[in-house]
């Protein structure tokens, strides 16, 4: 890496860290913007609900269909629901949901705040006596942190229905037996880390989208760049968090 590029990378990492520090400083000080938080939660949930649901269903179905031949080769078809459900709930659904949200929510936040920045709406808010950081950034970051776990739980559920359909395409299994096989292996220790992980995914998507938008420069060109880099950086950070979560879960034997 060239020294100039490295300098830029480190400088941006420093800026994001400062921005995150400001988030924690502002987040717990009154005034609390509850109405805007609820509006953002509704907006984020409503915007991604169908996409996350459909993707979850497809993932459940596809993973089941693709895992069947391998399980059949070992004569372990009856293990299919439990194996698929564990991989869906622990890893696939949280990561896929986070990636969808990074694409849809991260870019949306980046573009919205970027456009507000270049059209001086953020300055206008400050002149109007509202702390724009609190009103725009804190609410959006909390909204992504709250909505990501809910979307993951919903997508997990829908994915398991997809898996049920996948299993029934190859053999006949009643819903009762299917759920029994799932909950024989799927424990609270599988669900909890994925929920905690998704809170961090939500935080990363929100803070990076807000940072990119809030620090937009160079007019409309900068808005496009902010939206684009919000997705790229948030996607990368989601994978980093996932890697760290796997290591931490391993260290504390949450397996």
């Amino acid at each position, binding site marked *: 890496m060239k020294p100039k590029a490295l300098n830029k990378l480190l400088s941006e990492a420093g800026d994001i860290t400062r921005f995150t520090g400001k988030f924690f400083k502002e987040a717990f000080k009154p005034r609390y913007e509850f109405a805007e938080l609820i509006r953002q939660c509704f907006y984020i949930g409503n915007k991604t609900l169908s996409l996350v649901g459909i993707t979850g269903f497809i993932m459940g179905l596809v993973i089941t269909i693709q895992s069947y031949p391998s399980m059949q080769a070992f004569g372990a078809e009856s293990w299919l629901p439990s194996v698929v459900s564990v991989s869906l709930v622990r890893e696939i659904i949280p990561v896929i949901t986070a990636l969808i949200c990074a694409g849809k929510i991260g870019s949306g936040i980046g573009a919205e705040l970027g456009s507000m920045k270049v059209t001086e709406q953020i300055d206008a*808010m400050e002149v109007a*006596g509202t702390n724009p950081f609190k009103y725009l950034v804190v609410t959006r970051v909390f909204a992504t942190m709250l909505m990501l776990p809910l979307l993951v739980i919903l997508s997990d559920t829908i994915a398991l229905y997809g898996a049920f359909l996948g299993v029934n395409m190859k053999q006949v299994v009643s819903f009762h037996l299917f759920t029994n096989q799932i909950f024989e292996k799927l424990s609270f220790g599988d669900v909890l880390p994925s929920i905690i992980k998704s809170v961090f995914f939500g935080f990363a998507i929100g803070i990076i989208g807000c940072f990119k938008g809030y620090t937009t420069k160079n007019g409309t060109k900068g808005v496009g760049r902010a939206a684009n880099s919000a997705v790229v950086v948030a996607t990368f950070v989601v994978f980093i968090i996932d890697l760290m979560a796997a290591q931490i879960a391993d260290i504390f034997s949450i397996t």
Partner: protein
Amino acid sequence: MNTQTISNSQQVIQINGLKKSFGDNHVLNDFNVDLLQGENIVVLGKSGSGKSVLIKCIIGLMQPDSGSIQVFGEEVPKLSHDSLDKMRINVGFLFQSNALYDSMTVRENLEFSLRRHWLKTSKENVNDLVMEALNNVGLPETIDMMPEELSGGMRKRIALARTLILKPKIILYDEPTTGLDPITGREICNLMLEIQKKYNTSSIIISHDMNCVKITANRIVMLIDGRCYANGTYEELSKSNDQKIKQFFD
């Protein structure tokens, strides 16, 4: 030309030795100006000469490197966040791009300035203030419209209504006629004068539009090389033989 006499000579804004640089670019370099009660000052200068930076320093959106900015006797760069917020009640700012919140209706845009918890405005009073501000700019029918549904001139008027809702004593206009056709531009300038008469406001107007300057200015301040290069009425400056001044009036 705005020939209103400034009978009350009380200074509402005093700027002394103001300096602001961006790297090696010294946009404001020992700039001095006073704004009197009821007066309209137009700050004239080339693009990038620091005119917008000047009014952003006055409203506290930018910190000057050095110098003094006093608004109603309060030193703006030294004000705490809360004091700055209270000062801004008396100082309206009309942004060049209007800066209307595009995800909110006209009503919500106007109500936004009344969110300050310490204002304690009742719901009926909020509605009255919104209607009064919209009536002042002649657009009460747009109350439930979105900014994207409005023309450029209407947006400028709504932005002005938003500035007026708290009845500020000083209004800072950042290029109020930019992007408007000459007729709409003239309407906006006349509206600015009407508002000045009605509420006895003082204004600092940033403009390149010489028609607007002629209509609105009691006094013109030429911002050249970061300094107050010249200061006088439209008549006085338009007769100047100084090439740097003359080029704006040719």
